């Protein structure tokens, strides 16, 4: 096993598939996407299968995630935004489960791949743009023209708004990707210190205590980050969807 901290992000083919000259192989990343979907859907399905009037603990967890996202979306995008509830709920559950699965040693972290987070962000922004134009036509462009700006400043403000809108998919994807990547690398580096220090005999083992404590603390922090990044992604999705539902309201 390599001590290289980036080794864990390596994508390996499991079942090679090639369609039209493009490589669509089933990789370890694909495997963990399947595992993520299986774990998240399986948990939600099994815990709610009793449909208890009085929920069990696990059923409460499913209900709480439902109500958590529902209230987040209602606050973020209003009651008109509730039609996007399946989308925001799926995104949150998928990212959260992928992040948490990545916390298991030797498991692949799906969300540590920039292309995956970028695809999810493009999905969100694409939905915003498509729904915005579908619902409001060219009125959707009011999004880039804030109210009460003096005419002289307007071109500048519009330019800034357009740039900020275009940077959204990048910031949305890079935030999640970089957090997961950096966290896992840091964990690996500190854990690697433990291994290499303990190779230096008794003194080394004594010294290895410090990075070991650090690794334990970082593991706790990473669980927090795993939840927080899924939350941030969902909150920002709600805010962007609000632009699609109510353009020109800010």
């Amino acid at each position, binding site marked *: 096993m390599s001590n290289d901290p980036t080794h864990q992000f390596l*994508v390996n083919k499991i079942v090679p598939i090639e369609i039209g000259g493009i*490589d669509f192989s089933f990789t370890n990343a*694909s495997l963990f996407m399947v595992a993520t*979907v299986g774990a998240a859907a399986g948990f939600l399905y099994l815990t709610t299968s009793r449909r208890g009037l009085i929920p069990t603990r696990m059923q409460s967890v499913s209900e709480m995630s*439902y109500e958590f996202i529902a209230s987040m979306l209602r606050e973020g995008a209003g009651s008109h935004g509730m039609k996007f509830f399946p989308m925001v709920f799926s995104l949150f*559950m*998928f990212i959260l489960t992928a992040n948490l699965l990545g916390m298991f040693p030797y498991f692949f972290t799906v969300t540590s791949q920039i292309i995956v987070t970028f695809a999810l962000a493009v999905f969100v922004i694409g939905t915003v743009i498509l729904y915005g134009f579908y619902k409001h036509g060219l009125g959707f462009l009011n999004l880039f023209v804030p109210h009460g700006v003096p005419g002289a400043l307007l071109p500048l403000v519009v330019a800034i708004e357009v740039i900020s809108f275009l940077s959204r998919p990048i910031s949305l994807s890079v935030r999640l990707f970089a957090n997961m990547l950096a966290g896992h690398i840091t964990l690996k580096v500190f854990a690697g210190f433990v291994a290499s220090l303990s190779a230096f005999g008794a003194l080394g083992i004594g010294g290895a205590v410090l990075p070991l404590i650090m690794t334990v603390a970082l593991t706790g922090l990473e669980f927090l980050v795993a939840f927080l990044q899924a939350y941030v992604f969902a909150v920002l999705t709600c805010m962007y969807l609000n632009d699609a539902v109510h353009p020109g309201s800010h």
Partner: protein
Amino acid sequence: MFVTAAYAQQSTNTEGNEAHDAPAAGEVHTETGVAHEGEHGSGVFPPFDSTHFASQVLWLAITFGLFYLLMSKVIIPRIGGILETRHDRIAQDLDEASRLKGEADAAIAAYEQELASAKAKGHSIADTAREAAKTKANAERAAIEADLAKKIVAAETRIANIKSKALADVGAIAEETATAVVKQLIGGTVTKTEIAAAVKASAGN
């Protein structure tokens, strides 16, 4: 899109080692790629390795699409249904509770009213009974008093009769006694009329 294209080109360069007609930048990457060949299979930082981008996007689309379908068709209606059932049930129970409370309040009010009327009725019955008893007692007392008065009158009459009769007898006895006393004292006889007059005179004193 620029980025993706650049990486695609770079990865083909790395894999194919076709450096002869690639630009200079491609060559640099090829060399770094070769240096790490044994370990990674490609020289770039794994998350930026575009070799598997197409496969990742495809599998993400498949898995996330499936997940989205599962959520929107099965899980969300189910959890929504559970929450709605619970909400309805709580509302229904609250309604039922308030209805029962209303019933209990009505029952208490009816009971209070019943109690008050029963109390009033009891009072009136007691009053009537008391009045009746009083009247009856008064009537009886009056009757008894009347009876007693009658008896007293009768007794007084009788006493008077007896008294007068006794007094009349006293006159006769006094006459006889006087006659006898006079006879004893003076040895003479006294006429009856004189005696009677004397007795009458003394009785008159």
